[in-house]
């Protein structure tokens, strides 16, 4: 197995994809395998012959993913994706602490702590819990994206039920020290959830070592299919169903399983051996990109550069440039990149993550995020750099002209 077999032939030849934090193309090898799995259309809950193969595929996927993450297979609950996993963890803890629990000590714990840069699914679930009587504490981050640890420490108490902090940010790639944060939470008897959606294939992590109680993952950020994700729930941790239904996932998540997507997700663990090399390739290219960028384009900076980051992420602030126009121009030239999170594109408001980091609305609107993937090549980065250079210089020229004519600037 090597990177060539992973290179997806469905990627358009004349385009360069640099938005791997939004989603990744399907691994070529998977698209071949999937055709074989399509015949396993049976319901894995069925006792008869047609249910057996899908059940085995699910079991293999669960075992492989558990091994990959360093956990027990029964600690893996398949979901429809990262957002469902995040919702399940947060709402589940809320339900089991607030409603179900008869333990008065548990009922005292009515605080949820999250960071200011969490994914909308975490923020949304936190808001849901707030509306039902939980106290939600939001820990700020600084301009480099790092968590205010002192604030966090002070927020923790015997009232804290759950902490939810992402492993790495989808827009900047900035990594939080999850192991330490979880340890601090545990010292106060609180549970710890981490949204690890951006980690697969970009970092090597072992959940056992990380010692979190819950962790969320998504298949489509890892060269798999959309519609598959998983929630790791450490044995004996509080849990309550988000989706009631049949006995699937040992009664913990109702609904007939997305066998094909989960099987594909599990299959991706075969590439575990490639990850160290992939990380070092991406990091080299990302660092090269940033160095060249700063050399070739004036008034640019990298947001979060001084922090520990994912090896594939770069968040670029290009002063005076409207991110919306930049993105459209790059798209027309054949480059796929994003401004804010992909979910909010189409409605280009300034990125809440960048605002939370203390960037002004104008700075946030002049930002662009790049996400490299396993297949990104030096040629692609070079081509992107020249494309970007051209577009930025043209946009700056137009802006200078309109300023001369006394028009209102951006």
């Amino acid at each position: 197995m090597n990177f060539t077999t992973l290179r997806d032939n469905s990627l358009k030849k004349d385009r360069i994809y640099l938005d791997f934090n939004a989603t990744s193309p399907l691994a070529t090898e998977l698209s071949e395998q999937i055709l074989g799995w399509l015949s396993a259309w049976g319901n894995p809950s069925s006792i008869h012959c047609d249910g057996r193969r899908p059940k085995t595929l699910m079991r293999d996927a669960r075992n492989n993913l558990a091994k990959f993450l360093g956990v027990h297979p029964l600690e893996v609950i398949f979901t429809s994706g990262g957002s469902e996993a995040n919702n399940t963890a947060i709402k589940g803890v809320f339900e089991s602490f607030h409603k179900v629990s008869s333990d008065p000590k548990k009922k005292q714990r009515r605080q949820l702590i999250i960071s200011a840069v969490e994914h909308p699914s975490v923020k949304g679930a936190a808001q849901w819990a707030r509306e039902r009587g939980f106290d939600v504490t939001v820990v700020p981050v600084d301009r480099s994206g790092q968590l205010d640890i002192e604030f966090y420490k002070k927020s923790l108490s015997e009232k804290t039920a759950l902490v939810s902090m992402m492993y790495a940010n989808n827009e900047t790639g900035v990594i939080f020290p999850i192991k330490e944060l979880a340890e601090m939470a545990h010292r106060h008897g609180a549970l710890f959830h981490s949204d690890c959606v951006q980690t697969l294939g970009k970092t090597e992590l072992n959940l056992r070592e990380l010692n979190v109680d819950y962790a969320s993952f998504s298949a489509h950020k890892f060269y798999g299919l959309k519609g598959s994700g998983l929630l790791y729930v450490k044995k004996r941790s509080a849990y309550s169903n988000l989706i009631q239904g049949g006995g699937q996932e040992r009664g913990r998540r109702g609904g007939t399983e997305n066998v094909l997507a989960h099987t594909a997700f599990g299959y991706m663990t075969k590439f575990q051996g490639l990850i160290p090399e992939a990380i070092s390739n991406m990091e080299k290219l990302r660092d090269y990109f940033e160095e060249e960028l700063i050399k070739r384009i004036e008034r640019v900076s990298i947001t979060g550069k001084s922090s520990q980051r994912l090896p594939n992420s770069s968040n670029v602030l290009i002063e005076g440039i409207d991110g919306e126009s930049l993105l459209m121009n790059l798209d027309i030239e054949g480059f796929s990149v994003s401004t804010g999170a992909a979910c909010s594109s189409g409605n280009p408001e300034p990125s809440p993550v960048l605002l939370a980091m203390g960037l002004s609305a104008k700075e946030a609107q002049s930002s662009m995020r790049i996400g490299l993937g396993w297949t990104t090549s030096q040629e692609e980065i070079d081509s992107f750099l020249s494309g970007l250079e051209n577009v930025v210089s043209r946009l700056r020229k137009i802006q200078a002209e309109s300023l001369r004519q006394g028009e209102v600037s951006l």
Partner: protein
Amino acid sequence: MSPRILKPSPVKSDGTKTRVLVAMSGGVDSSVAAALLVEEGYEVIGVTMQVWDYSQCEVDEGAGTCCSTTDVDDARDVADRLDIPFYVINCEAKFKEDVINPFVSAYLQGQTPLPCVNCNTYLKFDHLIRKMKELNCDYLATGHYAQIQEGPAGDPQIFTSEDSWKDQTYFLFTIQPELLNTIIFPVGDWTKPELRKYAEEKDLIVARKKDSTGICFVGNSGYDNFIESQVSPNDLPPKGPIKEYPTGKVLGEHKGIHHYTLGQRKRLGVFAENPLYVIKIDAAEATVWVGDQEHLYRSEMEIAKCHLLDQIAEGESLRVKIRFQHQGAKAQLYKKSDGSYSVRFDEPQRAITPGQAAVIYRDKQLLGGGWICP
């Protein structure tokens, strides 16, 4: 000999395609505009302006407003079928500042505003012109029913559309003449039935969509409710008397002047033997004057903030439209020292309404216009 329609060649002198940014609302006109340009061989980029959060108002989505959420999806669908790039650009802040706020304040002053002109002035032919340059496009196209033709000196001039019923030049009088070299109106020489037929043939899903009527952001609950949703209760115009014109007799109480429009007959809440019409709205006195229809007719008006696209001679007999549905009436214009114009009609006109535009034509040529003063 009819004047030549000005339209650039789809291929530039260097052999590359002419790149056109098309403003797509999701309606049939701008969809066909985009389709025609693609068919003619231009490189086309579609764009929809997201101007208003439609979750705030009760609009039947896609049922005849300019650009509600499903309309954005319709525009995207058309762009996909045409296989052209498509983007939604957020103009909510600019739209609020340049279109909604003036609209609201005009109503509060007892006028009947015309937001579509501001939308053209500040969004389509300013913000989108900027986007056109930024996206390295050579031209901006819109689905307006209007034509750009060659004037006597070879300069571009705006003429009414082939389909005189649909003609939209009334909304275009503020356009900067120098922009006409960068604008295309692809459907200006089409009639609406032809255009629908074309859309059906091309299988554009918008072919049977209703025409847009009314103002895109107001919704079904009416102007007065919209105004009340935008203004704090303390800033709303107060109640006041409804007086009979010219006697001054108080006939009843009105709910605030923003509920009334010149010429309005229904929902006055006063009883009289003869039908009564709103004759005048006096914002300063918070008074609504009503009276017999004959008092609605006037032969003279003043127009301010005038914008002319061509020379007009003092006393020249021209055609002036005082509202979109107005056929236009013969009039002469006289310039005043402050730059405004006095307009004298040959025949008295009904309900010359402050806040609406007076738009001037020489035959079919759009000459410009101004805003009707109270």
